[in-house]
């Protein structure tokens, strides 16, 4: 199941390390000189906190490393630290993330920059440790920037980008980096660790500016507001999230310039789409079996492509619709569920459909597939099964709008 990503050697001073996605984010925290970090145990995310503990103990990192008494406090502590101008890091998984929900709600409302790692995990019950995306997705409407990565390298790079965007005065919104449990959090891969100089050049110091809570800047933060004020306050946060796409593009461009590594389109990755008839979509590490399956199907003459959503918030609806308009049909693989949703589809499927609905140009049919729940393996045959159904739809044959893949039935 390991998804060791092969990192192409580059001419640079970077060191190559064999580390997990969690460790990669821990390294990013060290490079970003994070000030306050709060930990609380829950698998799989907590591996990042174990690595950070060692970094602090070994004197490689100088920060306040606080072990909280619960996720609610864990997130409240860093929220308040960030309000005082400290760069913060936090994280959780599954029901731990849900336990912190009140804090997760107020953090974007207060325009608090924060980077959090979500080690995606199935929600209880039955308390599976394996990956499911529902945990991180619960904050999708609240002003959190949400990104899914599919390699340890991308985890490290995205963490640096997340700090830069989250702490940009135009944004001041938190960012959650989703890493699939086990596939990323617990498997090691070769990762380019950039030099401190490059990171310093890329990532300016966090400046809380006019919103700094300090006796030299006497302000009152978050008094209780009634219906005379709430619309205006929400509208401000709407504007901040609107600006996020622009600031993200700037950050990725600078990242490429300074680190010599490019991610192309920041919002979604396209694989073998140039000549594709149909495309599959998904988030996170299922990209590996999908890409392998595509290579095999292409040998059999099937022109299948893949679009991996990286940024779920902000959601690049117009760009995605423009891209998907080129294909005969789209199959979205959700590693999540949304019971009772339109056509009972997963969250990503529903968002892709709504992105297409209001876009100009052609609208290919979108089939939803629910797979890999609770960490179940998404196999190459699973992916081929998905592709076949999408082909049927492309040929105008009626297909169910939501199908469960890899289910014993």
């Amino acid at each position, binding site marked *: 199941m390991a998804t060791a990503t092969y990192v192409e050697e580059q001419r640079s001073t970077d060191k190559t390390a064999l580390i997990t996605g969690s460790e990669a984010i821990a390294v990013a925290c060290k490079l970003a000189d994070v*000030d306050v970090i709060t930990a609380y145990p829950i698998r799989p995310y907590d591996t990042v906190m174990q690595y950070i503990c060692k970094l602090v103990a070994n004197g490689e990192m100088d920060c306040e490393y606080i072990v909280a008494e619960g996720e609610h*406090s864990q997130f*409240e502590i860093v929220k*308040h630290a960030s309000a005082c101008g400290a760069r913060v890091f936090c994280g959780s998984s599954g029901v731990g993330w849900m336990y912190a929900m009140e804090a997760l709600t107020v953090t974007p409302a207060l325009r608090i920059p924060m980077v959090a790692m979500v080690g995606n995990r199935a929600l209880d019950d039955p308390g599976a440790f394996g990956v499911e995306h529902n945990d991180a997705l619960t904050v999708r409407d609240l002003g959190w920037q949400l990104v899914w990565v599919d390699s340890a390298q991308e985890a490290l790079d995205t963490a640096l980008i997340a700090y830069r965007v989250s702490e940009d005065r135009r944004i001041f919104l938190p960012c959650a980096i989703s890493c699939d449990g086990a596939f990323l959090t617990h498997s090691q891969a070769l990762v380019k660790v950039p030099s401190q100089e490059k990171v310093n050049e890329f990532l300016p110091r966090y400046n809380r500016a006019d919103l700094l809570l300090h006796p030299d800047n006497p302000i009152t933060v978050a008094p209780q507001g009634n219906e005379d004020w709430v619309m205006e306050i929400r509208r401000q946060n709407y504007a901040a999230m609107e600006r996020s796409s622009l600031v993200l593009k700037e950050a990725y461009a600078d990242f490429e310039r300074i680190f010599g590594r490019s991610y192309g389109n920041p919002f979604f990755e396209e694989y073998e789409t140039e000549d594709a008839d149909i495309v599959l979509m998904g988030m996170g590490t299922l990209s590996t079996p999908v890409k392998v399956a595509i290579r095999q199907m292409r040998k059999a003459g099937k022109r299948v492509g893949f679009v991996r959503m990286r940024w779920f918030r902000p959601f690049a609806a117009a760009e995605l619709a423009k891209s998907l308009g080129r294909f005969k049909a789209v199959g979205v693989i959700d590693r999540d569920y949304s019971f009772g949703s339109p056509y009972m589809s997963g969250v990503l499927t529903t968002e892709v459909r709504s992105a297409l609905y209001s876009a100009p140009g052609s609208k290919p049919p979108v089939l939803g597939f629910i797979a890999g729940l609770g960490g179940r393996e998404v196999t190459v045959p699973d992916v081929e099964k998905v592709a076949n159904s999408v082909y049927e739809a492309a040929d105008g044959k009626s297909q169910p709008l939501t199908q469960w893949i890899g289910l014993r039935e």
Partner: protein
Amino acid sequence: MATYIQIDPTQKLDPFKSVKKLPLEEYFTSGHRTCQGCESALVMKMMAKAAGPRSIILGSTGCMYVANTTYYSTSWVVPWMHTQLGSSGSAALGTSAALKVLMRKGKIKNEPINVIAFCGDGGGADMGVGAISATLTHAEYNSLILMYDNESYANTDIQLSGSTPWGANTTFSSPGKVKRIMHRRWKKNMAGMMAAGHPECKYVATICMSYGLHGMNSIRKALAIGGPTFIHSLDPCPKGWDYDPYLSHEMGELAVNSGVWPLYEVENGLLRLTGRTEQIAAGKIRRVPVRDYLLKQGRFAHFTNDDIDYFQSKIDDMWEKWLIPGVIPFRRDVEADTPPSS
């Protein structure tokens, strides 16, 4: 001996000598919309006066959030930030940790800044007790958590909390035709619990701002001693307790003089009964009957004489049977507790 804990310097805050020597400046001022005669607003005013201008104050949800700061308006002169109902402990910890590390790294000027997080009895004795307890174990972070206790969720409509006295009328315990006493739990002993359970916490005290100088000096001590500290303030609430606001000051005096509210401090593990309570314990003054306190409050208007006697007997126990009178409810011998049938 090696020191494993690095406690940063605190401000030097000597006790105020007398009410005539108090600084004139206010750091919590007018404009709040609290009730007429709100003692909790008085606590905020005196707390800010005691702490002074180089302070950051965090306020968890409750009257002192909703009524003091209605958006676009504030009563605070010093920086203030809202925190969630159960988060006073976390807010104090996060703020203190940020100041500590930013000063150590030279990212902000190195100077002692007071960090105070306040909560009501709902936020403190109920929802936030876990976070407060955790913060009191983090000895390296200077902060004060002040619990203003008006003995109910007074902002949300006077619902009972873990700090509401036995039998009191609240919207969640209003007497009816069949049941007279709907609230049968005894008030939670927060200060005693915090003092007994957190050996690294250097200062815990109970105060009542009817004795303002005493209360302000406790706050100054708590801020100057270093590490996390806890103060439990009893605040008469004209709204929820249902008495004429002009009695607010007297109601606090009655709570102390009837022995219902003992004043004490635990400083570096040393227990000291303070103020009027010390005189009561020393037998210099007699406790006034609890009846005089209860019958001035509409929330006890449904009490029968049996109820009043029972309340008195529980207060007598606290003074006569507790191993540490008024502080820790450990006893030498077990006796049956027989509340009146409701």
